[in-house]
């Protein structure tokens, strides 16, 4: 419950749209992205509006990103892994 850390957490490095990002080992990918101030995880296929995580428990599917080439991965249910390559539809060039 304390805001100050009594120890230093080990971190992992993964990739977001080709950019290296650090996160505390084992946190959810959604937390790793939000912690890096990434909020646009995808674009709505109908309206093209930016979308980010909403429910945080796997039911809304707004946090879907592409992980190691696999699309439709729910970031809120996926622990971050070292070297993971994550693509969001937020910052990369869109067709």
């Amino acid at each position: 419950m304390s805001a100050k850390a009594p120890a230093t957490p080990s971190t992992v490095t993964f990739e977001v749209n080709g950019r290296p990002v650090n996160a505390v080992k084992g946190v959810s990918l959604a937390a790793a992205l939000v912690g890096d101030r990434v909020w646009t995880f995808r674009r709505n296929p109908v309206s093209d509006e930016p979308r980010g995580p909403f429910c945080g428990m796997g039911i809304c599917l707004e946090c879907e990103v592409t992980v190691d080439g696999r699309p439709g991965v729910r970031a809120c249910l996926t622990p971050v892994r070292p070297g993971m390559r994550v693509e969001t539809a937020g910052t990369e060039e869109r067709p």
Partner: protein
Amino acid sequence: MTRHEERDVVIVGGGPAGLAAARRLAAAGLRVTVLDEQPELGGQYFRRPAPEVARVWGEHRPEGRRLVEAVRAAGVECRTGHLVWGVDDDGRTLLVSDPAEHPVRLRGRYVIVATGAYERPFPFPGWQLPGVTTPGFAQHLAAADHTPIGERVLLAGSGPFLLPVACSLLALGVNVAGIAEAGHPYRPGLRALGAVRHPARLRELAGYAARLARARVPLWQDTVVVRADGGERVTSVTLAATAAPTRAVRTVAVDALCVGYGFRPQSDLARMLGCAVRTDPATGDATPVLTASGRSTRDDVYVIGEAAGIGGAPIAAARGLTAALDILAREGHDVPAAELRRPARAGRRLERFKKLTDALYPAPAELARLLPATLPDAATLCRCEAVTAGEVRRVARTTAGDVNATKAWTRAGMGPCQGRECGFAVSAVARTSPDVFPSRLPVRPVPVTTLLEMARTEATRTEVAPTEATRAGAARPEAARPEPVGPEPAGEGEAA
């Protein structure tokens, strides 16, 4: 290859209810499997922090870890990362996707649905912006991932849950810009009334309220969010009085907004299994019709925990245990009468407390009459298909109050969330009845490759995989053996 497996009891959902049931049933020697789509057991209430987070910042609800350990020690087969997405044509076999997205078909002589709850959002203009989330997401980020959802955060909606979430954010050093509560529950008179019978639970709530007061977090009662603005992320929130939701009274600068109006039972799997549901008049939610033991209108299917009706984790656990004891009694196990009475009595006591707290907050059905009616035409109603309130209203005028016709015309509720987020609001805007979409297969999107793999193995399958639950040491009474899995009729269960 599709694997086909059979158990005494299959429990869908590894939260407080599912785990309580699993532990008791396995301790009596039954072969029990718990399926959960999350990477760890515990459900939302006992969401496990990453081990590194627990090591550095301490463990959120360590009793959850102890419960999971006890469940494993009792010999329960725990399958996390397993998504139950449908029910086969026989009405019994669960269609499951494993962590590698391979299909698994699993059948239990009893099925226990412990699928929990999800949060109730009411749409408002801008609710689809990044940075607008449920309070639950903020809580998971804080408790399990030690990650603040933002630097300046507004909490809104209704219900006691907003208070602990605000406290979790404060503990992370977040500037909590305020709490907007749609009702006016925080009056000393009502609290004192509750304290007479249920001091512990109300003390907990009062403790949160005191911490928020010390941190001078503004609390606006009778207040709702009427719009959120921003571009790639929310930047401001506009509030109005609940009774006059079109007249703005205040705008607050934020970088995250967490809105939730309590919880709704996740009943789609129960409905797909054919369990009868009825609409709860206070909440408008589809709630399974159950006996006191949690047995549904299907003799072999139980619904427990929040999926059976919102009550909180202690009620959920009591319901789980009650259902387990009912199954054991039916299986001819000797269950002491005192053990049978205990969870039932605890459940009744907790239900009384729940009624009391429910009375403090506005009934969701009441808010559903009030809020969606004032939603501007341009507001997004269905997030997945980006359907506006105006489109739904226009179509609803010609579909004579049929929610499915409205859905078919507008596509509202047809996206990947299956109407879980917008369904009841679509019904409210369209003024239709019934107020829930029917449960459809798959309850979650399933990769096409999983379906193809299942279809491919359907035609030729003969094997029945040995169950992984048959572990050494767990003696199985012969009376509790499942009937053998015979060859099923060809052609069943192909993916639609």
